[in-house]
């Protein structure tokens, strides 16, 4: 149907609007009166709108206001599918309607377990997004990459790097590859590609708000858990926790506020002369590791952390119990605590109205406080959706788990004596308890029949990701995706056992699917 309105403003086509970066960009675009077509992965239009609403709510923005104004449209699509899975009539309707394509979707998972998902999202997903842009006749392409495509280099200019630098991880390689592939595609399609490279994005500069707690937040979370651990140990001086931190005190991980990234992007977008270049959306003066440590220690009332240089964490046999927990937690983010890369902002600074917000202890405190006050919860509708039926849980706990445990040798905690309860889903649709004695699983039953040492509250989707071995247990526990109650120390120790168990015995995906209604 043809629009009945007389609004002729062009539409920005945006991917990734439910993520940290994309939602901040969406909020800023809407605030600047852009009209935005947002591609959202969802089963129903209601779910798509709900996901946008949740993402925008973090920034204090009410999605319905913009949806009803006709300034925002949620279109269901999936980067994993050709043409983003858009039906033909939708593509036809989009043709000639879109003035700019902004690709902000991507995976920022740094763990080796997540590597398999990085190429489909960051490389192939980017390719599909701009293939669609070309098919729609849109020639104004905007790609969000990362400043860390420079890898371990000490200094990075605002230019594409022809030769691959030494990368820290697969994530960086995928972003570098996406930049190069998209540049080639832009040449083929006579499109103008502008690349934006933010550094490590954190929450809002004023409120500290953020939609999810990944990346640097896993370090915050690790300190939070250490503090909770110390509360339960009378023999430990919480101001003198023996913790060696594998980084240099003066190094500066380049943290940048989400609202600054979004603002600078929109200011660049508004200026046609800023097309076709590479822009670093980084911080010129980020906090040092020491400043971050000070903020964390002050907030949690702990101390004792000692920087020991960038040579890596001590070997497993030399670690204290605290270091065991801490290193597991920060393993994936730790490489970003090393070094102080200098990202040139010469080109960006030519076009933006002001530099990013200055860092200080109070702004760090706000980030930590927001995470704590929201209890490290994720607010995404997708996480509350059931991943399988109750039958699926029963099959896992009653059939698969006991059988696998008979073959499983606990390598780290042979004297494990723990009663563990899993409460899965907001309404507890899966509620199972497992009793371990002397490292052996001796009983599994529905519900909570006896006193429980540890309770994990977990969303169905997260549960299935863990048991399939698709997520690191430490990462999910520390990101707040799993809520822990009871014996915190036991819970964290058990996380390492569970990690090893699911590594050796990942639950096959097909098996779960077969039991879905």
């Amino acid at each position, binding site marked *: *149907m043809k*629009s*009945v*309105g007389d609004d002729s403003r062009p539409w920005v086509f945006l991917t990734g609007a439910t993520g940290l970066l994309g939602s901040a960009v969406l909020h800023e675009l809407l605030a600047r009166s852009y009209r935005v077509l947002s591609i959202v992965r969802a089963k*129903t*239009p*209601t779910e*798509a*709108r709900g996901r946008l609403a949740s993402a925008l709510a973090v920034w204090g923005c009410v999605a*319905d206001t913009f*949806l*009803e*104004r*006709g300034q925002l*449209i*949620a*279109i*269901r699509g999936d980067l994993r599918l050709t043409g983003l899975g858009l*039906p033909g*009539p*939708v593509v*036809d*309707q989009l043709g000639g309607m879109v003035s700019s394509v902004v690709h902000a979707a991507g995976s920022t998972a740094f763990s080796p377990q997540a590597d398999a998902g990085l190429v489909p999202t960051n490389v192939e997903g980017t390719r599909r997004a701009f293939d669609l842009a070309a098919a729609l006749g849109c020639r104004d392409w905007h790609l969000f990459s990362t400043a860390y495509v420079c890898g371990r280099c000490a200094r990075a200019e605002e230019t594409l790097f022809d030769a691959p630098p030494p990368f820290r991880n697969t994530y960086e390689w995928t972003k570098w590859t996406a930049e190069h592939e998209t540049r080639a595609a832009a040449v083929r399609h006579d499109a103008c590609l502008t690349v934006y490279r933010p550094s490590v994005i954190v929450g809002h500069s004023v409120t500290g708000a953020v939609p999810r707690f990944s990346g640097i937040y896993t370090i915050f979370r690790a300190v939070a858990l250490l503090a909770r651990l110390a509360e339960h140990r009378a023999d430990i001086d919480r101001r003198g926790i023996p913790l060696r931190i594998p980084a240099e005190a003066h190094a500066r991980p380049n943290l940048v506020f989400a609202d600054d990234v979004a603002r600078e992007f929109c200011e660049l977008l508004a200026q046609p002369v800023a097309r076709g270049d590479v822009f670093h959306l980084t911080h010129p003066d980020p906090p040092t590791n020491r400043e971050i440590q000070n903020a964390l220690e002050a907030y949690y009332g702990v101390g004792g952390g000692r920087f020991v240089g960038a040579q890596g964490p001590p070997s497993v046999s030399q670690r204290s119990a605290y270091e065991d927990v801490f290193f597991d937690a920060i393993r994936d983010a730790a490489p970003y605590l090393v070094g102080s890369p200098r990202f040139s902002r010469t080109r960006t600074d030519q076009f933006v109205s002001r530099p990013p917000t200055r860092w200080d202890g109070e702004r760090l405190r706000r980030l930590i406080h927001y995470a704590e006050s929201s209890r490290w919860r994720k607010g995404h509708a997708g996480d509350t959706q059931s991943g399988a039926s109750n039958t699926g849980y029963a099959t896992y706990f009653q059939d698969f788990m006991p059988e696998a445990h008979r073959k499983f040798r606990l390598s780290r905690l042979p004297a494990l004596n723990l009663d563990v309860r899993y409460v899965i889903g907001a309404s507890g649709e899966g509620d199972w308890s497992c009793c371990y004695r002397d490292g052996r699983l001796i009983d599994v039953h529905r519900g909570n029949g006896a006193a429980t040492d540890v309770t994990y509250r977990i969303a169905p989707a997260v549960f299935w990701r863990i048991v399939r071995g698709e997520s690191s247990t430490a990462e999910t526990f520390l990101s707040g995706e799993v809520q822990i109650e009871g014996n915190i120390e036991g819970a964290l120790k058990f996380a390492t056992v569970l990690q090893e168990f699911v590594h050796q015995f990942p639950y096959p995906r097909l098996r779960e699917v077969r039991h879905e209604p």
Partner: protein
Amino acid sequence: MSPEVFDIIEESLAIESPAGPLPAVLAYPFAGSPLGGVLIIGPHPLMGGGLENNVVRGVARGMAERGFVSLRFAYCGAAPSSTVMAEFWRTGHAPDDPHRVDDARSALRRLEGVCPTPLVLVGYSFGASVIGGLLAGATATRIVLIGPTLCRHSFEDVRQSLVPKLVITGHNDFSTPLEVTRAWYDRAPGPRKLVVMDGAEHFYRGLEGRLVEEIVGWLQTPI
């Protein structure tokens, strides 16, 4: 009729009416040709009737997702005085009530200008009673009454109409006892269907999707 679910686009409008411009939102499938038009007539403006009402918004969006053009609007009028409010709470009526039909008629004309027939009138609560004033000369092919306030407002024109009707009421609707709705329904002529929704009272919070399914299912049924 296609069972497909569509992504939608919404547009805010200002509809000219005798009493002044009415804020309104048009919702329709992002792509493809619409199946027909649906006018959503909301609760009394002194009882939460407005564009953001959960039933109004939910049904309007839900019908658009199912291929229809929906139009929802807010009644015109200034903020009521305390006297008007007191009278309303006592009687369920306000002095401007007769003008609500003019508002709805203006919205209906706007929808007719945008969208092809068939036209469906969906009234919720007090809005269901407003439908009676629209029937003369209207092109409506079906009527849907959600939680009609039969004890408070006149539904005689609606009852007597031969336009096919779907009546949806909550099992625990405080505004109208179920036996009153059943008796009214039994006396209505013409094709009709009564749906008593378990777990629903008058506000249908969280049940908006079920309302849409009931309406779409009924529209798919030949009369």
